[in-house]
């Protein structure tokens, strides 16, 4: 059982983790998700007593890590696969760790077998691939047969066989009643491995719920419907027909319609009855990955931008300012909504879309841990954790993704 209460870590002016409270229970695999730089590793280091929290505290089995009696027998951790002296062999590395906790040398050979490194046990770890390094790190975590296990990105660099192995290992460890805390930035991997999810972004808690709830709260399927582009009247007509039939319709930037609440055959029938031709009618399943992306997109620290190659291309006109002057960014036709997956119709996770009030994907969450820190105006209290209270009121300035993005 790992328990964090109000955990905060500041490095100078930068807050890496802010007021994080959660519990990791034994017997289940708890996934720890968040974009790069969201504070996952910092939290892991604080759990292990490597970094001192600026505020708050974290305990393992009721004790702060530094005061745990014989810590290696109680807590096993994989923090960094490459955190090994390259000149030391895998076996020597594990042996030195085993001796710290009074673990017999036979156990070293045992765990080497468990992770499949027995053939390279005598080789210097310098020559290890990332995947082999991960296996060595996992071996080190398993060494003391601990009740609490922490893994920071354990599947990085592993081959598919290794990923499957890690997945089964985590489940097995949890089934044995251990506390298993696994961080990852891969939602798809966690969906398969974890039973419970803790999602953070920018060092703050975004979600803390069972994976099943997360999936049911976030599954958002819709149908994409396209009418002939040259005939906007057809589109209008279809829209009104679909809305009458009880569907929710949103238009996409390229003119397609996004329909929820109606099954595909019904949409087709309605279109036929209304005498509207369809160019496309396709089912679209929003993956958990997308749900996660939507949840965290406001909390991503490192986002790639278009590579414009501006300075590598010759100046457009000879008279213009050449190198050194940043060219004016061309005005882009960016869709108003999010820059990853637009939220499904009627579901506006960040209060950005002034569309019809609809079900709210995150309001259904069993816990309501905190007000949404990314809803644009952090000070304004919001009842739902990730959504505006209700339909946005016209006339009021709406917090939107775009403005919150600009602020950052």
């Amino acid at each position, binding site marked *: 059982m790992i328990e964090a209460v109000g955990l905060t870590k500041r490095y100078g002016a930068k807050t890496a983790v802010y007021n994080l409270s959660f519990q990791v229970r034994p017997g289940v695999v708890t996934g720890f998700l968040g974009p790069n730089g969201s504070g996952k590793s910092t939290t892991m280091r604080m759990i292990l007593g490597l970094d001192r929290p600026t505020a708050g505290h974290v305990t393992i089995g009721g004790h702060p890590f530094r005061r745990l009696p*014989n*810590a290696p027998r109680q807590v096993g951790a994989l923090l960094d696969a490459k955190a*090994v002296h390259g*000149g030391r062999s895998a076996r*020597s590395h594990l042996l030195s760790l085993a001796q*710290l906790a*009074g673990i017999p040398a036979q156990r070293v050979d045992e765990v080497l077998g468990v992770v499949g490194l027995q053939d390279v046990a005598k080789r210097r770890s310098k020559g290890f691939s990332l995947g082999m390094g991960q296996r060595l790190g996992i071996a080190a975590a398993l060494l003391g047969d601990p009740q609490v296990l922490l893994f920071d990105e354990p599947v990085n660099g592993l081959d598919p066989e290794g990923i499957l192995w890690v997945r089964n290992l985590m489940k097995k460890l949890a089934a044995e009643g251990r506390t298993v805390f696994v961080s990852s930035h891969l939602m798809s991997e966690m969906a398969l491995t974890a039973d419970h999810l803790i999602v953070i972004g920018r060092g703050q808690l975004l979600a803390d719920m069972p994976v099943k709830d997360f999936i049911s709260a976030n599954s958002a399927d819709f149908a994409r419907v396209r009418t002939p582009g040259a005939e906007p009247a057809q589109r209008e007509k279809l829209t009104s027909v679909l809305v009458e039939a009880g569907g929710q319709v949103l238009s996409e930037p390229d003119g397609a319609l996004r329909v929820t609440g109606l099954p595909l055959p019904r949409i087709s029938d309605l279109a036929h009855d209304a005498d509207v031709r369809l160019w496309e009618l396709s089912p679209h399943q929003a993956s958990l990955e997308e749900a996660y992306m939507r949840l965290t997109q406001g909390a991503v620290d490192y986002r790639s931008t278009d590579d414009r190659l501006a300075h590598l291309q010759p100046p457009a006109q000879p008279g213009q300012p050449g190198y050194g002057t940043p060219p004016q960014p061309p005005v882009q036709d960016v869709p108003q909504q999010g820059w990853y997956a637009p939220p499904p119709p009627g579901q506006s996770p960040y209060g950005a879309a002034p569309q019809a009030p609809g079900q709210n994907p995150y309001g259904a969450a069993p816990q309501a841990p905190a007000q949404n820190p990314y809803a644009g105006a952090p000070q304004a209290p919001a009842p739902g954790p990730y959504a505006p209270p209700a339909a946005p009121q016209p006339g009021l300035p709406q917090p939107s993704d775009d403005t919150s993005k600009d602020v950052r």
Partner: protein
Amino acid sequence: MAVASAVLQSEWTKIRTVSSTVWTLASALFVTVAMGAALCALTNATFDDMREAERLTFDPTLISFSGMILGQLAMVVFGVLVVGTEYSSGMIRTSLAAVPQRATFLFSKIAVAGGLALLVGLATSFLAFFLGQALLGGHRTSIGDDGVLRAVVGGGLYMGLMAVFSMGVAAMLRSSMLSLGILVPFFFLVSQILSAVPKAKEVALYFPDQAGSKVMRVVPDAMNSEEAPYGPWGGLGIMVLWVAASLVGGYLVMKKRDA
């Protein structure tokens, strides 16, 4: 509480399973003995060409330790690497996750590495002395003479302390590169140069290497040099103070900073 004996055992495993230990310690021994032997042979051959003052204050013990000026650098490298590679490899996080008691961890590591350096230092010192004396021919001294045994044992202590001092500095700076970049030029250049500059000389006398190396002298003003305001053991004491300071600094940094 990870028991200190367990940490000591683990640190011993760590130190004996990397090749840098063997290389740095072997080169400390080899360089010191070989260079001392060469200088002893050279001195023996050119003894009559020396000035009278130098001949009168000739210190056969000290001359057999002249290789230490280079050999100590290998000891510095050894000390820095023992601590510094924990940081450069990231192993420090694994180590501290296993031994949350940071003082136990640091001082066990230094005890093991320092003990090893001391043993190698003593072996180096005795080897350099006996080989050097054998090559000095008629100008030799014997281990039974006044102060000679003290100088030889002191030479071993000096090398061991040099390594421990470097470990403390590396624990403070948390980086092998930075520590080597400061320590090697300091001992090889700055300290040597300052000890030859009139005013700075008096300050340089209190540098760890300058003070500590006085323990290896049998003749206090040997080879036309000035006498230090402290005795041989006093000099070593000054060096011990430096070592203690670096260890305290290293401990405070390890205790306070995030790993």
